[in-house]
């Protein structure tokens, strides 16, 4: 029998209450010993590596006991004034909100802050800043661009394209040879947003500048404003739709991320717009597939080539933490150069410090020259607050929907959000 909808939450709340009490009691039991540092880390692939580090660290000293927390709800933690003592996770708009409101403590006096590359620290500031503080220290950066199948490119005698014209030539040559140029997985809206949208817009528009303008326009964003999604992004998003229409697999609308990894691993397409996180999945099917990466060219000038980056892991210590000192010590431990290098090498990340070891994995080597000269941008889809269903709109565009109306809807959503916040 279907339960009355209001009873289920009640049962849930009751069991939750019990759980909380139980965990609180467990917390009390440990309070006699060393200071506990709750370390929040939610990236599943990273947990084994950091678990090892934690046991090593706990064994090496008696003052601090680090406990891994990979599941608690951050928003709720901050809301209750009980956030983790140290966070190491993806840095994005949602995290930036905590920082913007002063919920994260200042780390600028730590020696680790000196080592961060200024252009990488700048990425943090693009989302939000808090006056006088450096509250977030980037740990690992993921660079993403077009993944291409080197074997197919070699067999067809194709070079990595440097301009938009060359890109189209490559696509046409592949199509003529009966090979799908791009593998699309449009059933998953995020793959449209982080792949096609971010690469086409990022290769054409100054992303950080664009969002700065939008922010200062606020409620003014619309058909009348100088800068808007509809005006500024019409061209790249139009190009995106063109590329999708002409050069992706015909069943892309019903394919998911998982399907894409499998198909690309089997060589069913020459290019794939995904980040380095896909390499591990592709390797499950074809561990020896020869893959490379290159930035999607959107203009006639090779000087314009840029790669998409995101701060995959960044460390912060909340103001509300009860063990800031312990958290800082453990942070220093994590930021030792060899510890960072080993992590980045294993996860295909780029180092964030001046003394970081250079990347060597051939699959991401193609992006090194752009990363080294700071020719990068943070994905434009990531700068749109999650409350606006941008990925869904873009999925609509990928499936052939009207570009103009999708972008003007984004403008409207942006202005409405500015009105109420």
């Amino acid at each position, binding site marked *: *029998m*279907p339960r*009355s*909808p*209001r009873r289920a*939450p*009640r049962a849930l*709340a*009751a069991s939750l*209450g019990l759980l909380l009490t139980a965990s609180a009691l467990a917390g009390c039991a440990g309070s006699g010993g060393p200071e506990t540092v709750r370390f929040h880390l939610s990236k599943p692939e990273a947990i084994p590596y950091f678990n090892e580090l934690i046991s090593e660290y706990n064994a090496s000293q008696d003052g601090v006991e680090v406990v891994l927390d990979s599941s608690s709800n951050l*928003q709720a933690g*901050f*809301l209750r004034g009980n956030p983790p003592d140290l966070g190491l996770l993806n840095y994005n*708009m*949602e995290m930036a*909100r*905590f920082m913007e*409101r*002063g*919920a994260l403590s200042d780390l600028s006096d730590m020696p680790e802050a000196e080592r961060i590359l200024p252009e990488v620290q700048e990425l943090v500031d693009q989302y939000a800043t808090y006056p006088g503080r450096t509250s977030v220290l980037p740990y690992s950066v993921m660079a993403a661009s077009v993944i291409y199948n080197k074997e197919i490119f070699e067999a067809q005698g194709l070079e990595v394209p440097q301009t938009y014209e060359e890109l189209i030539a490559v696509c046409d040559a592949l199509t003529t040879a009966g090979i799908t140029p791009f593998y699309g997985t*449009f*059933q*998953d*809206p995020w793959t449209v947003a982080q792949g096609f949208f971010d690469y086409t817009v990022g290769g054409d528009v100054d992303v950080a500048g664009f969002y700065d303008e939008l922010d200062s326009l606020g409620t003014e964003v619309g058909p009348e404003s100088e800068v808007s999604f509809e005006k500024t992004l019409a061209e790249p998003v139009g190009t995106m739709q063109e590329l999708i229409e002409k050069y992706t697999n015909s*069943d892309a*609308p*019903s*394919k*998911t991320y998982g*399907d894409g990894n499998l198909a690309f691993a089997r060589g069913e397409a020459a290019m794939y717009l995904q980040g380095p996180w896909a390499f591990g999945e592709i390797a499950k099917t074809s561990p020896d597939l020869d893959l490379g990466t290159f930035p999607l060219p959107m203009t006639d000038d090779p000087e314009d080539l840029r790669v998409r980056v995101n701060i995959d892991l960044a460390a912060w210590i909340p103001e509300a933490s009860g063990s800031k000192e312990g958290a800082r010590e453990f942070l220093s431990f994590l930021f030792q150069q060899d510890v960072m290098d080993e992590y980045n090498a294993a996860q295909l990340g780029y180092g964030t410090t001046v003394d970081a070891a250079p990347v060597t994995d051939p699959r991401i080597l193609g992006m090194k020259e752009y990363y080294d000269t700071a020719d990068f941008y943070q994905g434009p889809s990531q700068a749109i*607050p*999650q*409350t*606006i*269903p941008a990925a*869904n*709109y873009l*999925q*609509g565009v990928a*499936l052939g*929907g009207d570009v103009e109306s999708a972008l003007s*809807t984004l403008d*409207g*959503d942006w202005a*409405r*959000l500015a*009105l*109420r*916040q």
Partner: protein
Amino acid sequence: MTKTTAAPPARTSHAARPSTARPRRRPGVEGIYYAFLLPSLIIFTLAITLPALIGIFFSFTNSIGFGEWEFVGLINYIAMFSDPAIVQSYLFTFGFATCTVIVVNIIAFLLAVGLTAKIKVKTGLRTIFVIPMVVSGIIIAYVFNFLFSNSLPTFGQAVGSETLSSSILANPDLAWIAIVIVTAWQAVPGTLLIYIAGLLAIPGDVYEAADLDGAGKWQQLLRITVPLVAGYIFINVILGFKNFLNAYDVIVGLTDGGPGTATRSIPMTIVTGFTGGDYAYQMANATMFFIIVVVISLIQLRLTRGRNAR
């Protein structure tokens, strides 16, 4: 006759008035009843009522869930009505709930009639039909996602159907049908059980009488069975409608609101308020949604009362 229709067992309300008809109950015994209610009442107040009131309060602010905030009056509510994403989610959710209620109740009623008739392997069949109820919605959704995106297109290509040869989940005009199918598949068993209970409560002698009067099977179904389970039909419609308005997990597993925003339900937009830092705004949305659901429930309840009194 109305007495025998076994009044629907739904109203297990927390208020359960201590009946005034029997004044001779000793106070000690009554105290025990209150003691039974108290734990639930406390938990209900702390975990549901209080947070709900706080939520409503915050819908008049610009809070993002923590930190400083200030009153903004009705701005959230005004912004809501001009927000195409929210309007779209209301249209979709109510259309979807109406459709699913009809589909689920027709299927469940017919199944129940079949399963209470004199047929072989009745128990075995009942068990099979109830299985979907035990599986979690998100798992069902992912399994069906695979069927819709892979198996169905293969079938469509084999029979040469243009519409079916690509996934209906990727078709903005058809994706909702997939969601109705999966939701119905999951919701039919619960509805079915209530109908079976209702049908079993009908005494056999009314059918005997009908037989003697020369009523055919079809007439018996329409003239006797349907009126006698009318109360159960209403219960199923009310409960079903409310459940389907809360559609979330099945949609997330099937389309994630896509293609475009074609299948975004109201609860899905509300959740983005928490994950996307739009707390106050989506609280306004949730308040609105709550009021609408309460109003609909009251109307339906009134209709039910009228029906039962006959």
